[in-house]
């Protein structure tokens, strides 16, 4: 049967990796939200230190990248196969009559998120893992232990209005991708029943709003000096 040959197996992978990435975003947004304590980044930097040094977390990071790559490769395979399934297009098509634009645009939204991710990883992940932070001084002492000052790095990056705009566009794409992706994952795994379908839809909508608004508020709050 093969791990990717069947159309349904591809759906399961898409859903499973999608839900995994959805759970990652909860952790990511939750820890980043520590900046809103507005304590000069102390709580946030402590959490950043824990995430950067904990062996379990670092191992899971590998899983995260694998999950992300699988989600992208699987998504691209689906996209190109689906295009091949209709070699001749309609002269006149009215897809808006029966479906939403974002449900039809998952590949496009995903590509936009991927472009944003490359910029985002270069801004933070690459610096903290490989090249070192650009902000000076790059470390700060908390309770006698040296911590990377990721908070100061964030302040530095979000001084640039172009960066703020790019991050807001990233959050916009993420919102619509999650808005369809959340409920879609449950449907793909066979979880659709009139008893709980509306609950899943509501949870997905709330999730997409909370996650993307929370992420979007961070560069804005730093740029406007609400968090410093």
């Amino acid at each position, binding site marked *: 049967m093969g791990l990717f040959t069947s159309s*349904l197996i591809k759906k*399961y992978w898409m859903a499973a990796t999608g839900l995994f990435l959805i759970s990652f975003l909860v952790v990511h947004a939750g820890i980043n939200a520590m900046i809103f304590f507005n304590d000069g980044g102390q709580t946030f930097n402590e959490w950043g230190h824990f995430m950067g040094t904990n062996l379990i977390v670092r191992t899971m990071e590998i899983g995260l990248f694998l999950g992300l790559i699988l989600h992208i490769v699987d998504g691209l395979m689906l996209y190109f196969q689906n295009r091949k*399934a209709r070699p001749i297009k309609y002269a006149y098509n009215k897809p808006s*009559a029966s479906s939403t634009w974002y*449900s039809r645009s998952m590949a496009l939204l995903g590509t936009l998120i991927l472009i944003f991710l490359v910029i985002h990883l270069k801004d933070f992940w690459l610096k903290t893992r490989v090249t070192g932070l650009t902000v000076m001084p790059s470390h700060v002492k908390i309770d006698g232990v040296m911590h990377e000052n990721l908070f100061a790095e964030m302040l530095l990056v979000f001084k640039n209005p172009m960066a703020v705009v790019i991050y807001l566009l990233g959050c916009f794409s993420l919102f619509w991708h999650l808005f369809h992706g959340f*409920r879609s994952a449950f*449907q793909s795994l066979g979880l*659709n029943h009139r008893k709980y379908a509306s609950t899943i839809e509501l949870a997905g909508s709330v999730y997409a709003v909370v996650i993307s608004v929370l992420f979007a508020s961070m560069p804005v709050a730093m740029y406007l000096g609400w968090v410093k």
Partner: protein
Amino acid sequence: MSNGNMNLTLKVWRQSSNTAAGKMENYQLGGVSPDMSFLEMIDMLNDQIIRKGEDAIAFDHDCREGICGMCSMFINGEAHGPNRGVTTCQLHMRSFKDGDTIYIEPWRAEGFPVVKDLMVDRAAFDRIIQSGGFVSVNTSGRTMDANAIPIPKDDADKAFDAATCIGCGACVATCPNSSAMLFVSAKVSQFALLPQGHPERKERVLNMVKQMDEEGFGNCSNIGACEVQCPKNISIENIARMNREYLSASVKPEN
């Protein structure tokens, strides 16, 4: 016109054979009564074409009462036209107005090659059914009466809803991915829900999905256009059921 008849501009896909190149052709048609069905309007247009000595537009049709699943036109960008829960033959010209331009195209999918004009070959659906869309019953004369097996009302209703699928292919035609999953899931569901379908349920779903993929239909991405344009209002709950059936059959292929 005083009697309420309409003048229409029709843009129709013309293609003389499977291998020939096709194109949209323009036709003017006057005196169309709002009481006509869409297919009667096409009959009228064909009458006009034949009188000119030209080749009539080929299109599929049979019962003309919305139950056979033969008519298959993509009208103004929608499968079976703008109305919901009806096939093309049950679409009436009162849904249009005088002076309208109407685009009429065949179903577009790799799995549905055009035979001629608006006619497509839907044998792919037959091959999917042959791969598992049946129940093997003993017809030796000692066949058990189906009504002797008690079935919960809810299951019977859901199975019946799935079984109302007429296999017209509107789901494929309207799906941006040309996916046939609504059709296949309806057939898988109607058997999976009933005790008679249970002995073969696992090999059925595995074989039907395999055949569906081989026919070149696309993958479902849960857009949901199929259930909106399905003339029998088949729900994508059936696709979820097929996903469950397939998952369980993949993990444990024996019954």
